[in-house]
């Protein structure tokens, strides 16, 4: 594993047992997260983004299960750790900032308690006084005055709560911060402030961030690389300018065309045909083929490999994969993703 790779995910599959049968919310996902980068993960609702984020922390709750895969985090396979060791990784090495800052803080705990508890959970020998001092220092750096430390979550605004959530992630200087729809419930101004802050913190703490969102604007703003997910599979991964400027996969192309643009003047907003597939019985072959404008015969028969057709730009599409129609091909999982 190259030194600049912080988190290497290989063939990660997550199933949810439903009454209609197992639903695969992440299907043999492979990707690398490099140290110090911001990796955006975009896709429509229900495509498995959040599941993937949780799976990276091994936090998928029953009826969901990680059915296969390797999670190499900093040279260590997280799948082999015990629950106790895994708890130590959570919060200390990998932290998560959740969708909704309104509800992701415990209503009966003060801000100070939130932060000190996080510290004391991982560093049991720390004195409460020291933990409190650290908490005060931390929130101060995030622009919350120390006298608000005794406030309860409902006394803070949405932006402040989100900053508190970030401070929880930063308390123990986590290597990887997974931000799951962290800006969704904020209004645009607070969102912009939040993104600015995230950018500044990234410099200061040398953070690696996995930014899970369906807001393409946020990803374009903040990310270095972007992964596009469709129906539990990654369809495109690459440099953010490359992917958004020159999308290769038909789904990404459609996605880019459906983003509302303030300069929208002379054409209607593009609507992709069809609807996302049922993940319990996904379409055979390429999962996008029923909606794809460039569908070919092979698309409905064989799954395309997730391959690099340009340097550091991976796409799972038969258009770019020279293939022999007669040759049966199994899904290829790249090792270089």
């Amino acid at each position, binding site marked *: 594993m190259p030194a600049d790779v912080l988190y290497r995910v290989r063939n990660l599959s997550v199933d949810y047992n439903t009454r209609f049968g197992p639903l695969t919310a992440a299907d043999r996902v492979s990707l690398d997260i490099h140290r110090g980068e911001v990796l955006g993960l975009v896709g429509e609702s229900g495509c498995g983004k959040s599941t993937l984020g949780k799976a990276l*922390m091994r*936090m998928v709750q029953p009826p969901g299960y990680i059915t296969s895969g390797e999670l190499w985090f900093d040279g260590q396979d997280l799948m082999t750790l015990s629950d106790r060791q895994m*708890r*130590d*990784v*959570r*919060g*200390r090495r990998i*932290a*998560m900032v*959740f*969708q*909704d800052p309104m*509800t*992701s*803080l*415990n*209503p*009966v*705990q003060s801000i100070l*308690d939130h932060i000190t*508890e*996080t510290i004391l*959970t*991982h560093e049991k020998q720390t004195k409460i006084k020291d933990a409190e001092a650290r908490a005060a220092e931390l929130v101060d750096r995030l622009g919350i005055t120390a006298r608000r430390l005794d406030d309860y979550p*409902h*006394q803070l605004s949405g932006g402040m709560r989100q900053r508190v*959530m970030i401070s*929880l992630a930063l308390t123990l200087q986590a290597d990887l911060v997974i931000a799951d729809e962290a800006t969704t419930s904020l209004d645009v101004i607070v969102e912009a402030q939040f993104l600015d802050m995230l950018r500044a913190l990234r410099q200061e703490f040398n953070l690696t961030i996995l930014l899970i969102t369906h807001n393409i604007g946020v990803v374009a703003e903040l990310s270095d690389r972007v992964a596009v997910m469709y129906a539990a599979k990654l369809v495109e991964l690459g440099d953010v300018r490359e992917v958004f400027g020159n999308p290769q996969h038909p789904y990404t192309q459609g996605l880019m065309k459906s983003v509302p643009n303030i300069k929208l003047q002379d054409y209607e907003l593009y609507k992709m045909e069809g609807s996302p597939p049922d993940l319990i019985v996904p379409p055979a072959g390429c999962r996008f083929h029923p909606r794809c404008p460039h569908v070919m015969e092979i698309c409905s028969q064989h799954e395309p490999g997730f391959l690099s057709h340009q340097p550091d730009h991976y796409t799972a599409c038969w258009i770019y994969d020279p293939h022999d129609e007669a040759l049966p091909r199994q899904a290829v999982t790249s090792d270089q993703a």
Partner: protein
Amino acid sequence: MATTTTKPDVVTSPYLLDTDIGLLRRFWRGRRWYGMEWYITTFGALILVVIIVMTLLAPVLSPYDPNTFIAAPFIPPGGGRQSLLARAGESPVQSGDDLAGMTIGVTRNTTSVKLAKELGANEYRYMLPGEVEIGLANSEVDLIFIDRDTVPEVLAAHPELEVVEENLGASYLLGTDNLGRDISSRLIWGARTVLLVALSSAAISSIIGIPLGLISAFIGGPFDRVLSLTMDSIYSFPGFLLAVAMATMLGPGLFNVAIAISVIYIPTFFRVVRGQTLSVKEELYVEAARGLGATPLSILRHYIFPNVIPTVVVVFSLNVADAILTEAGLSFIGLGMPPDVPDWGYDLSKGHQFLVAGHWWMITFPGILISLVAMGFSLLGEGLSEILNPRLAKS
């Protein structure tokens, strides 16, 4: 041109959330934003405060011992003062005679005997109520005590008698029961029993029910299923029958009754806590805590339990109200306290026995108190449930 200066109005809003105004005044201000619920809760709480003060000060407040046969039986409320009667013309007290050597006819109770002694008579004879005046008329005794209220009747029946002295002894605010025990004292001491049994039974059931509900919902799976079914089967019993069965098994006694009652309410706590835990468990902040590496125990203690507690408070006070009624019911059918423990339910059942004879006060006052205390706890519970309900919370 004249310059005008406008001063900003001084804002004197009573709604300012000063935190340095003292607990009582803050509580008083609460009525403005909680509205009706505040009044309900406060009224309920006031009833309870009165009852609790009564309980604590029972030795001071109660005029008599609750178990002594202090006066004649069936004295109506406010009655009980005695008149001293003698045969007309033979009144020794009036003529200043010494009472020595005279026999006073008394009914067998503490007050009359004490009165006779106070008057200086060293001889008294116990007689049945209704026979004392006959005894006096027949010269069996020289003086008798009778109830002041019955004097006109007695004088009408026995014109040869006359009143020597009136308004002797004490009166009984709420009357006496069938054994001549003071009802007010019994009620004051009985409050102890009732509150003790009701609170300890609710405490026992919450101590068992809350952790079970928390753990069951938190662990889930087959464990939860088995426990829920067990609790549901207990819950499906008619509550009072179950308490009767338990009380029969355990025998009389304060804590036995408390345990018998608590069994009924364990499922209530269990179900409420389990349901609440199931919903709190799915909250984002619990997941966030997990994401920060908190242990399951710490999640249960710091994230789930404090968020479940408000509902428990409500259930607790409603259960106490219910337990009071159940306890009274158990005592009513004779499965409650041992006879020497003053108890409202027992008084109620005795009152029921003698209601046909026209002694209405024996059943009325314990009945009022039981309803009042049960209502106090219910009002407190209902009011708190409105105030503490997170969906209705005004920030």
